[in-house]
């Protein structure tokens, strides 16, 4: 029987198998940030240990950082302390760190690929559930807890049981107003928020083959929102072109030899998955969520259904009560107070291009607060070099500085209680964007429409 892409990468990283137990899995890249690492560094220090392979470890600060005035010290004392601690810990262990304001700084899952840290056929972990993003390059990438962060720091390995595997195939051609975010929101709405728990997912088919690297990252990023351990897309020439020439990527002959190896990273024709799902691109439309988990989604001109996959009645009722919505109501025309473009899901240059194109020649709605937050310093600088900044400012928008921002509201970017926010981020959980905040997840085009009309509507 043939092997899946996942099987091949996994087997290549097994240091040893424990009978009736997990595998000792070698980790190629460890990405760290200031929220889930300090306790691991402390524990290491208590044991008298240092980071075992600092050259495989890279750090950035993102969750706690302000998105205005980054040239000044962080005002919030505990946020400042967390960021300072990361600077101390990385310096003490010889780890490459992109501090606030550094050209390499940004959200960990934007920076990793951008800097050429994340390649193909690797194992990549980070104390962050959206580590699944890096599967877009044909990697086994998954989020871990702080105890596991400590294990990787100490030994560059984890004890992991091999998960089940699922394949999601989407064939056909997407309509012009359908973005990669809509594709993944659609898939999650069909499978439910725990539809792939215990599974690693390979995305295949025409839609993902035709998708840009940024789009594949958006899709893989949200694998965790249907419970998957991670998502993976087989690398191709688009992947290799993206990596080529990046700061930490191999160069010259070394790069050519790497590409020759990476060409083999694909699932065998006769490989068998534990589960297989097929969808048709023609059924996918611009999506919005109406509830408090990412599986509660409908097309932007759809109505709120009677129930959602994987949600009992009490849970569904609780979600609608929190959102202030009722069954049967249309989503189109609903008033929006805030719009957030950014996060590790949709904070890349392609998202800003899509948003800018959609708002070009139009004006920001006066009663909507719009936060445009680049995913990294590199995205921020591209926004200006590509002239998108001028387009956005002419339409009445302000561009903030990079960070996780309103995705989880650990910094000052909080949505006030009761307010509705159209967010290109990944989670619409209760309180996720601030106490009592009501999140409507969407792609950059629906967000652009909301920013200029102040309402939910279908992008053109």
């Amino acid at each position, binding site marked *: 029987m043939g092997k899946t892409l996942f099987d091949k990468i996994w087997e290549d990283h097994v240091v040893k198998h424990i009978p009736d137990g997990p595998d000792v899995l070698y980790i190629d890249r460890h990405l760290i940030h200031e929220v889930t690492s300090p306790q691991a560094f402390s524990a290491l220090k208590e044991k008298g240990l240092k980071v075992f392979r600092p050259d495989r470890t890279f750090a950035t600060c993102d969750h706690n950082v302000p998105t205005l005035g980054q040239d000044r010290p962080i005002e919030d004392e505990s946020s400042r302390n967390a960021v300072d601690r990361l600077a101390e810990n990385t310096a003490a262990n010889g780890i490459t760190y992109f501090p606030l304001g550094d050209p390499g700084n940004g959200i960990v899952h934007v920076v990793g690929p951008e800097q050429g840290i994340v390649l193909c056929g690797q194992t990549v972990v980070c104390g962050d*559930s959206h580590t699944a993003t890096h599967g877009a390059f044909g990697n086994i990438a998954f989020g871990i807890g702080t*105890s596991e962060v400590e294990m990787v720091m100490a030994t560059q390995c984890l004890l992991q049981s091999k998960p089940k595997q699922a394949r999601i195939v989407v064939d056909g051609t997407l309509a012009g107003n359908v973005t990669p975010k809509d594709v993944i929101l659609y898939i999650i709405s069909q499978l439910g928020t*725990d539809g792939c728990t215990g599974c690693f997912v390979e995305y295949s088919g025409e839609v993902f083959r035709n998708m840009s690297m940024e789009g594949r990252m958006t899709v893989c990023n949200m694998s965790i929102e249907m419970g998957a351990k991670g998502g993976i897309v087989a690398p191709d020439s688009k992947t290799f072109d993206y990596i080529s020439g990046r700061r930490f990527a191999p160069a010259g002959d070394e790069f050519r030899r790497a590409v020759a190896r990476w060409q083999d990273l694909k699932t065998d024709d006769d490989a068998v998955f534990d589960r297989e799902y097929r969808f048709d691109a023609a059924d996918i439309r611009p999506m919005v969520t109406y509830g408090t988990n990412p599986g509660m989604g409908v097309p932007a001109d759809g109505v709120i259904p009677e129930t959602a996959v994987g949600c009992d009645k009490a849970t569904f009722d609780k979600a609608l009560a929190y959102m202030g919505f009722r069954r049967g109501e249309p989503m189109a025309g609903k008033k929006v107070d805030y719009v957030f473009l950014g996060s590790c899901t949709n904070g890349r240059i392609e998202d800003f291009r899509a948003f800018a194109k959609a708002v070009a020649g139009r004006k920001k709605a006066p009663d909507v607060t719009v936060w445009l937050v680049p995913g990294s310093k590199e995205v921020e600088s591209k926004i200006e070099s590509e002239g998108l900044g001028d387009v956005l400012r002419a339409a009445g928008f302000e561009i903030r500085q990079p960070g996780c921002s309103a995705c989880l509201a650990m910094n000052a970017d909080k949505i006030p209680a009761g307010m509705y926010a159209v967010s290109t981020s990944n989670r619409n959980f209760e309180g996720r964007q601030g106490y009592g905040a009501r999140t409507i997840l969407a792609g950059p085009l629906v967000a652009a429409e909301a920013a200029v009309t102040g309402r939910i509507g279908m992008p053109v």
Partner: protein
Amino acid sequence: MDKIDIVSSTAVLVPVDNIDTDQIIPARFLKTVSREGFGEKLFYDWKYNADGSPNPSDPLSGQKGVILVAGNNFGCGSSREHAAWALHDAGFKAVVSSSFADIFKNNALNNCLLPVRVTEDYLDRMTRVLKSAPDTVVTIDLGAQTISVPGAGEAKFEINGYKKECLMKGYSDIDYLLSDKEAIMAYERKHF
């Protein structure tokens, strides 16, 4: 690490599906750099209103016990181990659900908090019993891999054999990995 063998207690029942880690511990409490003190922040936004006053409709209020019984897909969302730390710090020894998010499950196991996965049918039965008789004592026997609830019967649950031994003997993964450095370095020599 602590050890687990038999856990016997009344249960705290929260029959809600998809309880995510943002509910278990809101992100604004993750700024601290220590592992301590998260217990008092557990389910904070359920327990308290925006002004800090107690929420009268808090689903946990008045319930006591070291076993949490929740709806399907417990612990979904963020990888924050703070969720497991908060539950452990608040005194919980086990969580019962019909499914657990993968990262939460690993975090729980690494903190001697036992995730007990039962069938939806059994969860329904025990939920009904606990609703009508909140003083019911639930017993979880890790060695025998059983959970029993008077009135709902007994059920078996699965756990990885290695993890079971770790929990019963108080071993942690990091000690295992550190003892295996030779094999890890041999792997590196072979591959790089």
